[in-house]
């Protein structure tokens, strides 16, 4: 348990510390050091879980199992690599945009605070604390979105705040209803919001209340996942905030919100198991499939008409979150396995892409797609990083995203064959949309007096190599975890 406290406590301490000294020259270095410590403790946690499967018991405040351990590690690792990128990047931004000391303090403190809320949300056993931490994730990032104080960034932050605040309020209502249903069947009322207790007693929960609660929770956490039609905040917040924040927002926060949905769906499925018709039994799955497919389709179409490079990739995030929601909604062992893998590879790839995008925007001095040209000529590392990242996110073999999308497609063909058609069409439209924009940015002649910038590209290539590795061979321990979770969710495994 100590390691969990250390893991969650380090970024919390960091948020307070950097709130005082974050503007100093050492601010970025302290940020990096703290992220490094967080990463080390998360890796130690991975080691512990590989030895003993589960950390915590039925009534403990923290509960680590196969489902959240790899997400914790992903969060801590991407948090570290992004902190590495953020140092020189923010130094450059501070110079160009004349950011004051107070704002650099705010930036570093919010960065650590954001990592803290995500780690807390992932490791807690209490659905109420999960809600508090997801709301906390909004609060820590909202001032980051408006960090540059331009009118459009303030607009984006206001939208983000109001939409996510309202959305997540629905999730609190759902949580209250879950607590209401649970308090009737769980002996110790104080424990009624613990996920382990809920899961153990799920069959006895009142199905009507749980159904209503699930709808509220889906709308609430779905807003944070970025499901259409609740996605409006996402492209704005991604495009107007500083790039390191876009990387962690897209790569990690959306995953945490989806993780909350998965946990709740597991309870809902068990609670509805005794219902008469199949339609009601699978209600949660159908809702998630519907929302997922709509998000996927809408995002794919919107990819084509983007003019801002960060908006382009935020729509790509909506597309992939839609795919994952669809995969978990489908609920077969294979699709669940694919969804779990996709959460991992998408998180790694998307944060790598946003790092490259950040450098590309600094080289060109703008985020407008039309004005970014000749990246490979100007700075080959950045150009190729962006290009390969896009190849990976578009789902080319032999990278990991291809594997998970292929698994998802084949399980779709087994269950609802006709749904494979919109999925395949969507994937090819997304591919066309991405490359239409990316190709002239990477190739093409560079504009005159375009200069290279100081770039940190190794995190990008590290992430992409891991994704390549996961595409070629998934380590046995990881596939064992995915299989455990699949058994926990669907009742049977794939291995």
């Amino acid at each position, binding site marked *: 348990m100590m390691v969990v406290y250390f893991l969650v406590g380090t970024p919390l301490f960091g948020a307070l510390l950097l709130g005082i000294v974050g503007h100093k020259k050492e601010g970025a270095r302290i940020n990096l050091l703290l992220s490094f410590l967080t990463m080390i403790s998360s890796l130690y946690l991975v080691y512990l879980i590989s030895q003993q499967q589960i950390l915590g018991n039925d009534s403990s405040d923290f509960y680590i199992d196969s489902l959240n351990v790899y997400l914790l590690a992903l969060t801590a690792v991407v948090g570290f690599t992004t902190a590495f990128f953020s140092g020189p990047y923010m130094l450059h931004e501070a110079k160009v945009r004349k950011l004051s000391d107070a704002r650099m303090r705010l930036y570093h403190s919010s960065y650590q605070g954001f990592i803290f809320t995500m780690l807390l949300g992932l490791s807690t056993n*209490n659905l*109420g*604390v999960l*809600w*508090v931490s997801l*709301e*906390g994730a909004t*609060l820590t990032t*909202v*001032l980051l979105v*408006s960090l540059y*104080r*331009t*009118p*459009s960034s*303030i*607009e*984006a*932050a*206001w*939208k983000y*705040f*109001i939409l996510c*605040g*309202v959305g997540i*309020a*629905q999730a*609190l*209502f759902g949580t*209250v*209803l879950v*607590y*209401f249903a649970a*308090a009737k069947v769980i002996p110790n009322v*104080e424990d*009624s*919001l613990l996920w382990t207790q809920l899961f153990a007693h799920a069959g006895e929960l*009142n199905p*009507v*209340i749980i159904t*209503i609660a699930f709808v509220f929770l889906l709308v609430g956490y779905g807003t944070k996942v970025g499901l259409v039609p609740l996605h409006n905040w996402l*492209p*704005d917040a991604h*495009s*107007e905030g500083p790039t390191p924040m876009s990387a962690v927002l897209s790569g990690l926060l959306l995953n945490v919100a989806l993780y909350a949905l998965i946990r709740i769906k597991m309870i809902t499925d068990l609670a509805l198991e005794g219902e008469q018709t199949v339609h009601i039994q699978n209600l949660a799955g159908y809702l998630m499939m519907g929302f997922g497919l709509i998000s996927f389709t809408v995002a794919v179409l*919107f990819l084509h*008409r983007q003019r801002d490079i960060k908006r382009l990739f935020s729509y790509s995030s909506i597309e992939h979150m839609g795919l994952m929601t669809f995969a978990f909604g489908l609920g077969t062992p294979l699709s669940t396995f694919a969804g779990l893998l996709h959460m991992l590879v998408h998180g790694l790839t998307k944060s790598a892409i946003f790092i490259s995008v950040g450098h590309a925007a600094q080289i060109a001095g703008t985020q407008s797609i039309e004005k970014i040209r000749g990246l490979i000529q100007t700075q080959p590392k950045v150009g190729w990083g962006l290009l390969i990242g896009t190849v990976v996110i578009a789902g080319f073999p032999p990278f990991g995203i291809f594997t998970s999308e292929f698994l998802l497609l084949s399980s779709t063909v087994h269950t609802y064959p006709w749904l494979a058609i919109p999925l395949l069409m969507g994937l090819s439209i997304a591919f066309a949309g991405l490359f239409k924009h990316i190709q002239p940015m990477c190739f093409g002649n560079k504009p005159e007096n375009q200069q290279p910038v100081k770039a940190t590209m190794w995190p990008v290539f590290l992430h992409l190599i891991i994704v390549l590795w996961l595409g070629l061979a998934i380590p046995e321990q990881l596939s064992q975890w995915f299989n455990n979770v699949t058994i926990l969710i669907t009742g049977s495994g794939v291995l």
Partner: protein
Amino acid sequence: MNIMSLPLSEQAILLFAGMVLFTSFSLLAQPRIVAAIRMFAWQGVLLSIVTVMVAVDTGLHHLYISALLTLLMKAIFIPWLLHRLVHKMEFQREQDILHHPVLVLLAGGVLVIFCYSIALPIERLGNSVTQPIIALSMAMVMLAMLMLITRHKAVSQVIAFMAMENGLFFAAVSATHGMPMVVELGIAFDVFVAAIIFGVFFFHIKDSFDSLDVDHLSSLSESDQ
């Protein structure tokens, strides 16, 4: 359930719950911002009174703490903060004109009926007097959302946002007699931080757009300019 057959204390809880819903409606229709802030404060006061009454009725001591928290946050701190900001920005006389007040109020009435019909199956399960309040608190959340989309000023949107939090708190008190303490403290902390950040935002919006009208915040969209 026959109201007349209930003990007097439970009848009083229902009466005050009805008054809380009434404040939601008057928030919905109130164009003057200062008056809306005052009405929001009254909502907080009523909410903490209901909480104390439920605490007395059920004998649960931790509800007294929730009532105190609500009184401090919703009835004193947030209204005070909003008042101060409005005065600082010389915004006292501003109005947030509602374009179709009758339609909005009618829609509010429809929402309340809708919420009662959704909550019907939940009520049937209940055996406590506070159960009918679930529908009422759901209605408060919906009314606050309606207020959020019909208003144009940042201040009134914040009041609507906080009124929604009130509805959620009311749901927790009535359905489950409060949440576990750690969750309740966490929520209170989140609301506190949110209120401060909203305050910061007023200044940013005022500096950038020279007014608190959120209609100016419409440059980021997918439509072609």
